């Protein structure tokens, strides 16, 4: 009875705190500028199904993709087990569905056990890829400190989750055998249980089984509530993030309408330069982005979706050749700054200015000017994050609001304005090639 009440309180607490944190993330994402990504719903659903659910883009690197699939499969499918855990926890029953489902129950639990075993193997390999083999993209400079700890924490939690399942089922198997002479017939624990726990007293087994049961469900609650603080939040956001993917060609950069209006005015001989803005016209927005609130909500969702796998950075030509730019760091900086801005608004009200900004305090000009806009990072991302659009928006701010342009580029821009080519050639010479030998 008491345990049922304790369980109920924990259940409500866990879901309540999780929802509160999810709302916080949602509010932060909504600090971004508006863009419309609600068109072409069926195409969007298709992309979400292929890329998020089907993990299509993961498989360009088959080894990590397979290992990831082992954990993903376990995560997606073993959740059915929670239904029984919730019922058992609230009502005090034991294996609520066993009687009713019979052989199918044995199959389902066995299926869960096999998936969990595969996940266990993958988790151990992942831990060694990060800590022993040290795969380059997982140990780069931006991964030091908290990001490294975060990744290891998640993997450790997964280890605990799986260990608890096998402890619970294994101890239960031995007890069941002793009491009825019959095995549950579960795929893993019916072998593993007797192997580990044979000969233990019923009391010890019972305690072990409870430790497994409570350990598992407490870890589920802890894991769930850790997610919004972690890079691991991608397990949820991968779905909306791929749904709201950019459907245009990757080479197409956004058109800045605020600029279009001004250019049209400049080119219109009848325009009155002193005319008052039309009624209801909104304050002209800043050109480009200086801080996270100048970015679009999709850029911000991207930052929360990033799980810091580093496929972008490992394919970035600038990063490969030793430049400061790392697209992954662009995403991590965006998220860190957004969390900071959200926290400030929460503590000091929405007009609070901490004097800091994404550009300058987090991302430097040197990083931005190293980008070749080649779209490799965008192509590589398994959850369709677009670091390039952030880089370009920050460049736009630098160039159009602060006139901070590398000297050689100033020359190039002047040439385009003066003679219609990035080099100093006379426009009248454009067709000379046709008459040269």
């Amino acid at each position, binding site marked *: 009875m008491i345990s049922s009440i304790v369980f109920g309180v924990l259940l409500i607490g866990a879901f309540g705190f999780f929802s509160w944190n999810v709302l916080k993330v949602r509010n932060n994402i909504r600090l971004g500028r508006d863009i419309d990504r609600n068109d072409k719903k069926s195409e969007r659903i298709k992309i979400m199904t292929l890329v998020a659910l089907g993990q299509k883009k993961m498989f360009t690197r088959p080894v990590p993709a397979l290992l990831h699939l082992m954990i993903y499969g376990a995560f997606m499918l073993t959740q059915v087990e929670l239904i029984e855990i919730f019922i058992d926890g609230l009502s005090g029953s034991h294996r609520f569905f066993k009687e009713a489902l019979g052989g199918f129950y044995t199959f389902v639990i066995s299926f869960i056990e096999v998936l969990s075993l595969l996940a266990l193997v993958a988790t151990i390999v992942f831990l060694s890829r990060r800590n022993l083999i040290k795969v380059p993209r997982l140990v780069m400079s931006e991964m030091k400190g908290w990001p490294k700890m975060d990744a290891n924490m998640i993997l450790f939690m997964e280890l605990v989750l799986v260990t608890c399942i096998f402890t619970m089922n294994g101890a239960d198997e031995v007890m069941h055998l002793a009491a009825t002479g019959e095995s549950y017939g579960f795929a893993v624990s019916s072998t593993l249980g007797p192997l580990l726990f044979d000969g233990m007293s019923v009391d010890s087994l019972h305690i072990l089984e409870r430790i497994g049961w409570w350990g598992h469900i407490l870890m589920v609650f802890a894991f769930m509530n850790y997610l919004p603080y972690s890079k691991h939040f991608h397990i949820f956001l991968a779905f909306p993030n791929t749904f709201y993917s950019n459907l*245009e*060609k990757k*080479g*197409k*950069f956004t*058109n*800045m309408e605020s*600029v*279009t209006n*001004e*250019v*049209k005015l*400049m*080119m219109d001989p009848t325009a009155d330069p002193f005319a008052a803005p039309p009624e209801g016209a909104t304050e002209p927005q800043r*050109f480009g982005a200086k801080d996270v609130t100048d970015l679009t909500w999709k850029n911000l969702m991207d930052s929360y979706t990033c799980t810091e796998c580093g496929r972008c950075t490992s*394919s970035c*030509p*600038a990063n*490969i*050749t*030793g*430049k*400061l*730019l790392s697209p992954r760091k662009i995403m991590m900086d965006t998220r860190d700054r957004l969390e900071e801005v959200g926290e400030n608004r929460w503590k000091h009200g929405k007009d609070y200015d901490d004097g800091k900004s994404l550009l300058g305090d987090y991302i430097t000009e*040197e990083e931005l*000017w*190293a980008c*070749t*806009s*080649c*779209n*490799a990072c965008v192509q590589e991302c398994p959850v369709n994050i677009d670091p390039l659009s952030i880089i*370009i928006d920050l*460049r*736009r701010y*630098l*160039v*159009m609001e602060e006139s901070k*342009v*590398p000297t*050689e*580029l100033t*020359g*190039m*821009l002047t040439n*385009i*304005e003066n003679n*219609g*080519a*990035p*080099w100093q*050639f006379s*426009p*009248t*010479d*454009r*067709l000379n*090639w*046709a008459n*040269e030998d």
Partner: protein
Amino acid sequence: MSLVVPTMAEKMAKGEVPDILFWVGCSGSFDDRAKKITKALVKILNNCNVDFAVLGAEESCTGDPAKRAGNEFTFQMQAMMNIQVLDGYEVKKIVTACPHCFNTLKNEYPELGGKYEVIHHTQLIQELINQGQLVIKDGGVFKGKKITFHDPCYLGRANDVYEAPRSLIEKLDSELVEMKRCKTKGLCCGAGGAQMFKEAEKGNKEINIERTEEALELQPDIIATGCPFCNTMMTDGVKNFEKEGSVQVLDVAELIATAADL
């Protein structure tokens, strides 16, 4: 054979509207190496009697490097002026040998009012061959040569054109060998995003060296590209390794024009 290069103005004076505008681009107009690509394409167009014209002195930078550098003002000024010119000549279809012009005209002009059908020259040449207007006998001089194709970012990833240039190389009876990083995984030459016009940021290697190294590992006779900027970067890379005697960097249009003996 001398080149026949009519301008839109000349065509208009005769009351004609050509089927397609050849957008030469700044590189194709002014850069000595890129001019050869321009001429190779014109040879192909002339040979196939394609009804085309160029803008000549009326052409101006698409604004691509300005936009990539973050200067949307300069970009849109260029775009709007070019759109006025293009619409003045009632242009419907454009071919260009520069993937940067291609991308900008195709993807970024429509929102500013400039709506045209834009194709890359490798796509046009592919069409001409498929329609039987251009015939390459026995692969020509490139028969048996080892050729690798470097994907220009603004043609490949930016616009998903991977097959047109490769299908042309396959027409040469040569051996097309792929670099490990090809097609969607192609590595940039280092020139995009306005990098062509500035020194690279501090690092431990130039991007074009990294890319050329990868190409040279295949021991090709020819590194083929479809972009004047990639061409410059790869040519510089080959010179860096002192391989210019044994490895040529050529545009696909040059390969085809030479193979067809034009």
